[in-house]
């Protein structure tokens, strides 16, 4: 039986789809790959040159790490530092430099936001053979999502008052969410099956009335509720899975979903080739 797919809703940063005729294990693996196996870029190393704000260095550095950066076509546009032939030196093929320098000179509370992060030309030219990675980068690759877009509110990093200053130099690296959640392209992946709980994979806690206390979700409209006199089918298997993937903007929802199949198949390939 071939898998059946229906995309119910598709926006730049989210996609809602229904997947049928696949195994629960397959659907769950799909979800796991979307959350933790897709590479993106994020700020990974920060040199704090000046910080006279009220927040400690670590606090700000953590906030910088969480800023989503545009990671379109990450596979081809940047290398993992561990795979690069600069041997951990962080050259232009495996890293990018963002700087932020804000000082407040007026009697106001100033917001330091992701819009203040500026991309700098990389000082370390790659060693030995050149790579094509930098050429493959899109114009805004590595910049905060929505930078200089008037429709997008920038991300607040901290607030400074008169006389305070924040100056940092950040190294942007490629990674996956198994190392740190900041590299996850997804901010949320909703996953549901069997909205009427016909399979009894869960049992609902309730005070007086189960039906009243557990209202059905949107997905319940897609399936028939069980009849009162219906016997429990203990051989039934889940067959229809409802996904809602929401990204943080570093990758488009379409790119996330499409890359899943690649990433996935490559890990199986490894398993396959070596076993024979």
């Amino acid at each position, binding site marked *: 039986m071939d*898998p059946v797919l229906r995309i119910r809703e598709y*926006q*730049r940063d*989210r996609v809602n789809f229904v997947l049928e005729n696949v195994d629960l*294990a*397959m659907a769950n693996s799909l979800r796991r790959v979307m959350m933790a196996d897709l590479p993106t870029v994020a700020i990974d190393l920060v040199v704090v040159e000046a910080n006279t704000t009220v927040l400690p260095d670590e606090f700000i550095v953590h906030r910088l790490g969480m800023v989503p950066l545009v990671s379109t076509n990450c596979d081809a546009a940047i290398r993992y530092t561990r795979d690069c032939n600069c041997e951990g030196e962080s050259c232009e093929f495996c890293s990018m430099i963002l700087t932020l320098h804000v000082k407040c000179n007026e009697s*106001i*509370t100033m917001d330091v936001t992701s819009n203040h992060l500026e991309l700098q030309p990389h000082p370390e030219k790659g060693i030995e053979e050149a790579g094509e990675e930098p050429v493959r980068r899109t114009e805004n690759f590595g910049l905060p999502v929505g930078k200089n877009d008037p429709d997008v509110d920038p991300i607040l990093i901290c607030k400074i008052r008169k006389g305070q200053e924040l100056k940092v130099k950040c190294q942007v690296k490629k990674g996956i969410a198994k190392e740190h959640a900041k590299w996850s392209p997804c901010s949320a992946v909703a996953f549901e099956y069997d909205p009427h709980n016909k399979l009894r994979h869960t049992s609902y806690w309730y005070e007086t009335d189960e039906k009243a206390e557990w209202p059905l979700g949107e997905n319940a409209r897609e399936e028939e509720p069980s009849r009162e006199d219906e016997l429990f089918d203990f051989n039934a298997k889940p067959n229809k899975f409802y996904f809602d993937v929401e990204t943080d903007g570093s990758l488009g929802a379409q790119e996330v979903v499409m890359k899943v199949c690649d990433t996935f198949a490559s890990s*199986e390939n490894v398993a396959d080739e*070596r076993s024979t």
Partner: protein
Amino acid sequence: MNAPNRYELYVIEEGETPVEVIEDTKIPNAATIKILKQDHTLGNMLRAQLLTMPQVLFAGYKVPHPLHPYFILKIQTDGTITPDLVLSEACNQLIGTLSTLESKFKREFSFKEADGGPGAASAAGGAFATSDDPYGTGAGTGGGAGWGNRDDYLDF
């Protein structure tokens, strides 16, 4: 302090073999397969695929310890095929399913794009541009007024 590096979860180090097949000496047509640097994502999927195959009598997997980045897959077949071949067959089937899934995604996305592109209706940037200010002040220099022109107590 002595936590392993996070990248050890998924990077195959030099000298490591990603797949190791240990044939079972006590049970006929059975093998234990150790797959390094993979977790439930692959393990559970392989197990489920193996169980759909008629030649497979038993298939199960476990991740012996959450800090050890490998899983163990046990397979017993009915003797018409060896466990490692049946695993390879299962992998091929999964890759096949995924490539049909990929082409279905491609087709569905192209339909949606023909309908007017991502978020043609409501969401061209709409999702990003929620202007509810979570901090309760206008963007930029909100709150400045409250300070007035009082003297600063900071000595510059």
